[in-house]
């Protein structure tokens, strides 16, 4: 088995304990089992499918392309499993594959917009709110989503990973293979652009 070079910020794990607190097999354990049994990979896909799909959708703004990119990310992940080092975290590794796919896609000329409204696919909890406030919330989400899509790709990736995927600066640096200071700068510029576009009343 080939070793996967440890990226900065990718936290090493203790392989002697491959179960999480709830007694469920860890991602890394499932990744190892998937090498022998393709069906085990299904559980890994199930754990990450919505997060990877959401990442792809926020990056591309197209739910059909996002679905395709999510599929592609998992297929590439499966194909690259023999090179996965189980002493490292699985999630940053998968995120790196997915993010690179999205960035490559955006840099290619295949980008198209349209398709069904992705908001239709949302499963929102009923918080007992009035329809007006729900509508306002939806409009707000759409404004933010549109503003994110107007960001340059490198800023977009950072802001999505930080605020929608709840990643730390260190994790983002590991996923995007960027120095920590670059992540900080990209995040600052991305949020400044978003703030000016969405809420600026100072100018």
């Amino acid at each position, binding site marked *: 088995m080939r070793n996967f070079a440890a990226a900065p910020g990718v936290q090493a794990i203790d392989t002697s304990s491959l179960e999480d607190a709830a007694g469920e097999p860890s991602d890394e354990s499932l990744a190892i089992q998937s090498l022998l049994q393709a069906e085990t990979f299904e559980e890994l896909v199930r754990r990450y499918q919505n997060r990877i799909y959401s990442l792809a959708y926020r990056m591309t703004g197209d739910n059909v392309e*996002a679905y395709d990119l999510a599929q592609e990310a998992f297929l590439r992940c499966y194909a690259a499993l023999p090179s996965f080092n189980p002493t490292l975290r699985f999630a940053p590794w998968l995120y790196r594959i997915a993010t690179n796919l999205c960035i490559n896609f955006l840099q290619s000329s295949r980008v198209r917009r349209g398709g069904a409204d992705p908001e239709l696919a949302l499963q929102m909890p009923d918080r007992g709110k009035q329809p007006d406030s729900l509508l306002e919330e939806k409009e707000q989400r759409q404004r933010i989503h549109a503003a994110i899509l107007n960001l340059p790709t490198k800023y977009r990736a950072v802001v999505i990973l930080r605020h929608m995927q*709840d990643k730390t600066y260190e994790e983002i640096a590991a996923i995007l293979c960027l120095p920590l200071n670059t992540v900080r700068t990209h995040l600052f510029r991305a949020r400044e652009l978003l703030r000016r576009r969405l809420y600026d009343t100072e100018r």
Partner: protein
Amino acid sequence: MTHPELECLQLYLDQRLSDPERMAVDRHLGACAACAGRVENLRRLVTGLTAMNELVLPDTFASELTEELAPSPRLAVDPAGRKLLVQAALCVVILLTCGLLLLIIDTPVTDPSNDILGLIDIMLGSPFQERASAVAVLAVMVLAGGGVLVCLLAATPRIRPQRRVPAPSPTHSDPPR
């Protein structure tokens, strides 16, 4: 009054400042309405970003994807093995073709032009006795063609899953955009 940099305010919100730096910003925000407003704007932005819903894929996504990964009998051979198989099949086809051609050429033919061109002449128009050679050549060509077809099928790459569009959730209450 020296205002903190905007980047410093962002780091303050992300809780990435050291304790002394954070306390200095706290003190400044208590005294500067402009910076407090900037922080409030930033906080609103961060809240809006984190409140973006996670999109949900159909439950069948994982199972359908895994079905595509499960090896079928033909795909059970690994890529290196498949390459070897194709090479072996090609060798068999070439040997078979050469052997049969040699057999045909060595067969005594009444026609004086006993070579490949002669055989083609025979194929184009000849008496019954010589037509047997033409049939043999035809059989060799069919065999070779079949062999190549088998090789191509064996070398066919893994079939990728087709694009599927997630079905809209019927339980969703928001009006379409």
